[in-house]
């Protein structure tokens, strides 16, 4: 209790924890869609581009959060358009955009006369530098991203699952694609102060990957990933405060530790589930009367399925299991 009161007695720590909570919610919410779409590295790329945005802020004296949001959105829309219309190889085009983003950021920061230490607080996060004004921006942006990620879940899921099918249903598929990219860009800017631009992608991807070990549906994965994003974000900030390291590193290490722990757990869950399925279906285990579904033909000597004499009747070997005649149908045997 003492530790909690001590932490909360610092204004900067309260702000850092609120920022971490919002980041921990928004990043996996967007990340679930990116991973589902097999664009797990997109957050990484946007993070690189956003660095140029931060540098623009440092150079001009505008708030770096806003310049980062603007440049990251521009970058994410470019990525999306290259993906959709790109005649050249998309991954090469994207790689060049990423390099340009990071080089531009370092160059502009140098021109602004800022030091590498300043840049580091954006690259890997910094708990002491979340200003009250920053917190408002972070709060509003994270709320908008979370509301869209939850409210438009069926649409965004459909786009990520199968974009072509979504287009064929008459949905504005391109608009939704761009929306996902913009949400990712906004999340990068939100997460900049907590986990940092270079590691934000980890907070988008790792909680989702961890959740996937234990779930079999998108919805459950999504909800579990939010929890798995919040826990390491909060504890990472607290850890960083005590040991005085960059919060981004401790958050990501904790999230990865969760993934490592979930791996054997997931194997166990899957094995138990498989046993459950077998126990529920295989009549050799349940001894139940299970008629075979829609059997296309009558088994006889000539049907091509090997006959197996079994006590008082004859079974037929059918795709690795036995069919036993029972009245006018066959039982699984």
């Amino acid at each position, binding site marked *: 209790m003492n530790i909690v009161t001590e932490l909360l007695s610092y204004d900067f720590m309260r702000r850092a924890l609120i920022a971490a909570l919002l980041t921990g919610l928004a990043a996996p919410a967007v990340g679930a869609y990116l991973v589902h779409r*097999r664009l797990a590295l997109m957050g990484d790329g946007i993070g690189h581009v956003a660095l140029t945005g931060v540098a623009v802020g440092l150079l001009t004296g505008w708030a770096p959060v806003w310049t980062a949001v603007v440049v990251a959105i521009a970058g994410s829309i470019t990525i999306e358009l290259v993906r959709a219309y790109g005649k050249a190889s998309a991954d090469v085009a994207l790689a060049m955009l990423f390099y340009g983003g990071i080089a531009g950021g370092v160059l502009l920061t140098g021109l602004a006369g800022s030091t590498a230490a300043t840049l580091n607080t954006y690259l890997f996060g910094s708990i002491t530098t979340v200003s009250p004004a920053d917190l408002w921006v972070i709060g509003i942006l994270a709320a908008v991203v979370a509301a869209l990620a939850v409210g438009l879940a069926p649409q965004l899921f459909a786009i990520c*699952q199968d974009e072509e099918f979504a287009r064929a249903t*008459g949905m504005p598929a391109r608009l939704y694609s761009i929306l996902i990219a913009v949400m990712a860009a906004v999340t990068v800017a939100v997460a900049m102060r907590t986990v940092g631009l270079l590691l934000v992608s980890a907070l988008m991807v790792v909680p989702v990957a961890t959740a*996937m070990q234990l779930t079999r*549906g998108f919805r459950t994965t999504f909800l579990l990933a939010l929890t798995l994003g919040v826990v390491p974000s909060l504890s990472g900030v607290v850890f960083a405060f005590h040991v005085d390291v960059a919060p981004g590193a401790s958050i990501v290490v904790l999230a990865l530790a969760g993934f490592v722990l979930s791996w054997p757990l997931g194997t166990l869950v899957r094995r138990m589930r498989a046993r459950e399925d077998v126990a529920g279906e295989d009549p050799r285990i349940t001894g139940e009367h299970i008629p075979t579904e829609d059997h296309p033909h*009558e088994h006889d000597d000539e049907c091509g399925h090997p006959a197996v004499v079994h006590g008082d009747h004859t079974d037929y070997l059918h795709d690795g299991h036995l069919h036993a005649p029972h009245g*006018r149908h066959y039982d699984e045997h």
Partner: protein
Amino acid sequence: MNAPVVEARHLTVELGERPVLHEVDFHVNEGEVVTLLGANGSGKSTLVRAVAGLVPVTSGEITLFGQPQRSFRAWKRIGYVPQRLTATGGVPATVREVVSSGRLAHRRPFLPASRADRDAVEWAIDLVGLSDRINDGIQTLSGGQQQRVLIARAAAGTPDLLVLDEPNAGLDWRSQEAFARSLRTFVASGRTVLVVLHDMGPLAPLVDRGVVLDAGRVTHDGPLPVPAGAAGMPDDHRHTTGEQTGPFGWIS
């Protein structure tokens, strides 16, 4: 005389400068089951993708339900089944979740699914015989079952026209039969089907008319001879009629 559901006139489609369809005239009437046949690269997939609005038309015109495609907005009347062997994304998804996306044309953003939406999804999953797998991850299903999930997804929108692009590609004979039964139930409700096939397999008895494409031109349009015991496949199944009725009311 049934009204045409799809009508293409002098349809020319180019994909990246390369002409794929040349002046194709083609129609599907209400309640018909029409199959598009042809070799690889003959343009049959491109034709259905053009009908589904997925590739731009270079010249000529497509009419859907009597309306020019350019001003056509009732896309929920068309259910599209893409040519795909796997239906999985990066994150696990259940059968119910995937099929639910077929219902989106009936739903509004930010509003939860209605009773009718949920019923339609369950009906569609039942149609393809996967009700007992409804909450299972789609990645745990076999290739044939995944293909049936894609059909359920298109059927969940209760479309008047079902467009399928090689639904049987890569499936074994048993899966093709299961698919043919699902399609038969769909057709029995008076709906229209346009299906691209590489070979007819167990679908042959369902088909009213075949259109054969060769190098982007129609070379045959009319009834197809139905070989006794569909051709080209080892038929070790002696079919008995009237003996057994499958779970969805069709004759096995």
